[in-house]
Structures are given as C-alpha cells and as structure tokens.
C-alpha cells in the first residue's frame, strides 16, 4: 500500500487538493480537501438588512453568482411572505438558466485538456470564448451584468427588459444556440475528437443516489431540507483515523453534506436522470449530462422568451421587512443549492445558512476515484466541476 499522496488540482474553480491512497497503480480511496480560506458569509450576514444579503451572497462565488442571488431572494421572499409576479419569475429563471449555461461553458474550458485531442484545442477555445461572450451579453441584458447581476432583487427584478430589445435578445440566443450545438454535436459527441482519457472514463461507473429539486429552477418542496445534514469530512471516515489522515482532514475548510445520512450526487446528471430519463452511469456520463443539459437549457430559454410578457410588472409592489423564516432552493450549475434565512422582528437577519452543491459532491468525489488508475486521479474532481469558494463559505456544524 502506498502512502497518501496529495496533489493540488488545477483547472477547477478554486483551491483544493486530492489525497489518494493507492495499491500499486490503482486508487483505493480519495479525499477531496478544499483549502481556500473561509470568508464566513453566514456569520457576516447576521444583523444585516436582507437587501445586503442578496448583493453579498452573489459574491460567495464569481461563477455561480446568479444562483446564489436567486436562492437568497427565494429564501427571503419565503420568510416575509411575498411572491414575485409571473413575468418577474420567468425573467429571473432566465437569469438563472443563463448563469447555468455560462458556468457549463466555462467548465468546458477547464476539461479541454483532458477530453479532447491536442489538435482541436485552438478551434475549441475560439468556439467557447465566442459562446461565452454571447451568453454574457444575454445575462447583461436581462440581469444587468454578466457577473453578480444587480437586477436580481427581493420581489423580482429591479427592472424589466424593454420590448424593443427582444429582437436583439432573440438574435443573441440564436447565435449562442448555434455555437453550443456545434460544440456538442461536432466536438463533444464525436468520438474521433476525444482523447483516450475519455475511453478510460467510460470504463468506470459511479452509482450513488441522486438529488435534484427541479430541472431548470428549484423547488423547496422537492427536497426535504430537514434531512440534509452537514458534517466535517473527518466524520465520514471510519475509525480509527491515522495521524496522517487526521492531519490532512483537519486542513479542510469545507464541510460535507449528506441527504438522509447518505452520500448523494447532485448536479447536471442528477437533474437529467431524475427529470429527463437520462441513462448513463459511467464517469464520462457526468460530463455528457452536463453538456446535454446546456442544449436543454437553451430550449427552455426560448420557451421563456416566447412566454414572457415584457410589458407586465417584474417586481412585486410591497416588500415588507418583518419576522419570518424561509428556505430558498435553486439548481445551481453544480447541483442543488439551499439558502435558509431567519429574520428578526425588525426584518434583519438573525441567522443564515447556505448548503452548496459541492458540499454534497465532496464525499462523492472520494467515492468516484475508487478503483481508477492513479494517472487519472486528478481528472475525476474536474468532472464534478467543484466550486471551492462556494464550499468554503462555511456552514455551522450541527451539534
């Protein structure tokens, strides 16, 4: 048995290491340890006005910003008992979808080197940068900016989209669709263009339970938040824990999430499996689901743009700040995201908790590396598109 080896993983969103224990060339098990500093968003929100929570929570992560903003708004709206108007919700969903597509496109950058043969890198980069800019343009138009969109607010959107701009939006969406379709059909699904690492990924399965609350938005009724438990990675290891292992685990600045006491996979494959009958249990399928999800999200966007009435109000008239508790659930690019808020008598935040998808996936990454060749170990975390700033915002351990 060889000693646990820790390697800083590159081409992921943030600072994390993968520690693996091997038997010869095969991985026995792995620990995905996030090591970025803990900025402490839950604690820093205590005592603040809920409007500050929306702006601050987006800055938990510069990749899934909109998802946090939406989950935060949903939680606060639930707490104070208001509901955005239909067209505000539709445009908010559009923002969330654009963030999801944006994040998935970014992810394709990160897995380029692993998935594709070297010769295609240049043209893929060109295609992906273009697609990203169209996606950003759309999010700018509807959300106000491509990162940390300021239009997302409690009660709906700060302002709507002028009818006159719908033509430009449809045009941009058309371009985005073309580029995404080209990427998916002509590159990703073309085996001749894929590297041999992909062949290896197709040989290994990962079949854990899956959780997803909705295909495109989020639904607090589709997941029982009470049954989500948050634990320190150390608690997932069977005793006795060696000194060496304890030292490694103590470095973790992220906690893990379990559902009904079990490790569950969240993310595109969970959504696609539960809501779209996706079949694919290999490690390669984790990425295939993500890529196919992009196309479905574009279809949903088209639906939204056809359905939405741009002349209708996009924000509810009254935003009372008062006592209450609320839960907001949104399907972030990486999986189910939960924000929980409690407001005091003056409507200020008494407590705030965030459970991010990467917290569910941290132990799942550990499972996913079992039995794979050592040389492939660093690829596995990337398949889950982990978001480290999200995972280390911190969560209070239940005692």
């Amino acid at each position, binding site marked *: 048995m060889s000693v646990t080896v820790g390697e800083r993983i590159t081409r992921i969103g943030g600072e994390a290491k993968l520690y693996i224990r091997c038997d010869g060339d095969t991985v026995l098990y792995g620990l995905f340890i996030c090591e970025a500093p803990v900025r402490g968003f839950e604690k820093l929100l205590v005592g603040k006005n809920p409007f500050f929570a929306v702006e601050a929570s987006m800055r938990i992560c510069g990749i899934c910003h909109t998802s946090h903003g939406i989950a935060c708004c949903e939680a606060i709206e639930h707490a104070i008992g208001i509901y955005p108007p239909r067209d505000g919700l539709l445009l908010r969903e559009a923002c969330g979808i654009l963030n999801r597509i944006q994040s998935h496109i970014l992810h394709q950058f990160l897995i380029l*080197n692993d998935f594709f043969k070297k010769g295609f890198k240049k043209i893929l980069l060109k295609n992906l940068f273009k697609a990203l800019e169209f996606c950003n343009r759309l999010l700018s138009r509807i959300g106000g900016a491509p990162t940390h969109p300021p239009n997302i607010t409690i009660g709906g959107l700060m302002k709507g989209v002028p009818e006159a701009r719908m033509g430009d939006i449809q045009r941009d969406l058309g371009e985005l669709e073309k580029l995404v379709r080209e990427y998916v059909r002509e590159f990703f699904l073309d085996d001749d263009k894929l590297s041999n690492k992909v062949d290896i990924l197709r040989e290994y399965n990962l079949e854990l339970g899956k959780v997803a609350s909705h295909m495109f938005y989020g639904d607090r009724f589709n997941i029982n938040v009470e049954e989500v438990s948050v634990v320190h990675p150390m608690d997932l290891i069977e005793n006795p824990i060696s000194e060496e292992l304890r030292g490694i685990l103590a470095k973790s600045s992220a906690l893990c999430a379990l559902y009904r006491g079990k490790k569950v996979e969240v993310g595109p494959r969970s959504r696609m499996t539960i809501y779209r009958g996706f079949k694919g249990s290999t490690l390669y399928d984790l990425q295939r689901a993500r890529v196919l999800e992009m196309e479905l999200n574009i279809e949903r966007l088209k639906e939204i743009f056809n359905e939405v009435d741009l002349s209708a109000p996009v924000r509810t008239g009254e935003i009372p700040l008062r006592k209450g508790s609320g839960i907001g659930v949104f399907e972030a690019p990486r999986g189910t995201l939960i924000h929980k808020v409690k407001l005091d008598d003056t409507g200020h935040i008494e407590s705030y908790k965030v459970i991010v998808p990467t917290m569910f996936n941290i132990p799942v990454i550990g499972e996913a590396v079992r039995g794979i060749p050592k040389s492939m170990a660093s690829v596995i975390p990337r398949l889950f598109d982990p978001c480290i700033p999200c995972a280390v915002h911190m969560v209070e351990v239940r005692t």
Partner: protein
Amino acid sequence: MSGEKIKVIHVDIGGCEGCSVSFLRSLPLISDKCAAKTLYTVDSIDELLENDVDIAFVSGSVCLNDEETIETLKSVRRRAKILIAFGSCASFGGVTRFSRGGQEPKPSHRTFAPLNQVVEVEYSIPGCPPPPQTVNSFMIAYQRQIVTQLAFFSKLSEFKKLSGFDLIDDIVLTGLCMGCGACEVSCPTGAIKLIERRPNLIVEKCIRCGTCYVRCPRAMQLLIRGVKK
C-alpha cells in the same frame, strides 16, 4: 519587439473566482502582448507558483489568519517583478471587509485584508469584478509606459480601504461634490442614486468595492495630490 513575450500569471488567493473568470476572458485580448497562465489553463500548479514571472495579477483578499495563504502571497511576490492587486477584494478588501470569522470549520479565519497589508503592491485595479477589457488596457498602458494611467493605479495601491461610505464622508460631506453623476454609473450593485444632484448611498447595497471613489473626479484629484485618507 522581438524576443520572448512577457510572462504573466493570475492567482486567486481566496476570492470568489469572479476576477479569475474575468481574467480568463481577457486572454484572447492579451495573447499578443504576453504569455499568460491561470489556474484554469495549467496542468500543474507548479507552472503558476514555481517560476519567476514578469507580472502577477493576484485576486482575492488575504486571510490574515491563514499562514498558508500568507506564504503563497509572499512567494508570488518574491517571484514577480510586478504584483497587481486585481479586483476590489485584492485592492481594498471588498466584500470580505464584512467578514467576522467565528464559523466552522475554520472559526479562526476572522480578518481579510487587501494584499498591500502583507506585501508590496505595484498597482491596484479595483472592480467587482473588473471587466476583461481592464486587463487589456493595463497591458497596453504597461507596454507603452503611459505614465498618467500607470501612476493612477500605482497611487491606488497605497490605499487599504475605499467604499461608498468613504465617498460620502470625504466628498459629499466636505462639500466637494458637484453633482457630475459619475459615481452613479460606477456602482456594480446600484447602491448610489443621485437625489437632487447629490449622491445618496443605499447602505445595504454597498459591498465596499471602492469603484465609485476611484471614478469620482474630486476624490481622485485629492488622492493624486497626496491627501491622506
């Protein structure tokens, strides 16, 4: 100009990755000016942290309670000819100025400070996040040595705190504001609204990015003249 392209890296030491994404998006714009690497493009972390570089763009604020982060920052400083604080967290602390610590699993992570609290910084570029074009503009200014622009960002690197609150305190309350409206279009969260020709700060929307301050004509004039904050 023949010869090797200048070596540029981008590192995030604890931010939200928003600045990292912005920097990634700038790569097509700056590819003619430099050879740039980020966490999103390298295969091994050594490519970022082991070699000497000409310019290091560093994002995220530094957690003063985390030895490893401080060491990483110091190491980058040693190996970079020029270190740029890229983004508001790195420049002035940004939203992490609100951090308190006290949270598991690292309750000791209490204080987050701008980079210049720990290392010497040549230039600070604020923004939450700065758009990709900013990186390109900087590289152009650097290549052509456009002194006025470089001096501006060099001056900013001396500051450890700038926010909408500072704008109100230093410019509005002192009577210096003339109502030009620049601040209103310099806020990423829409926290500044001009009411009867003077800025009003919606306190709960200010995330302390400092962009309003650096774009205020009066504020910058005072800063450049060396008025102490």
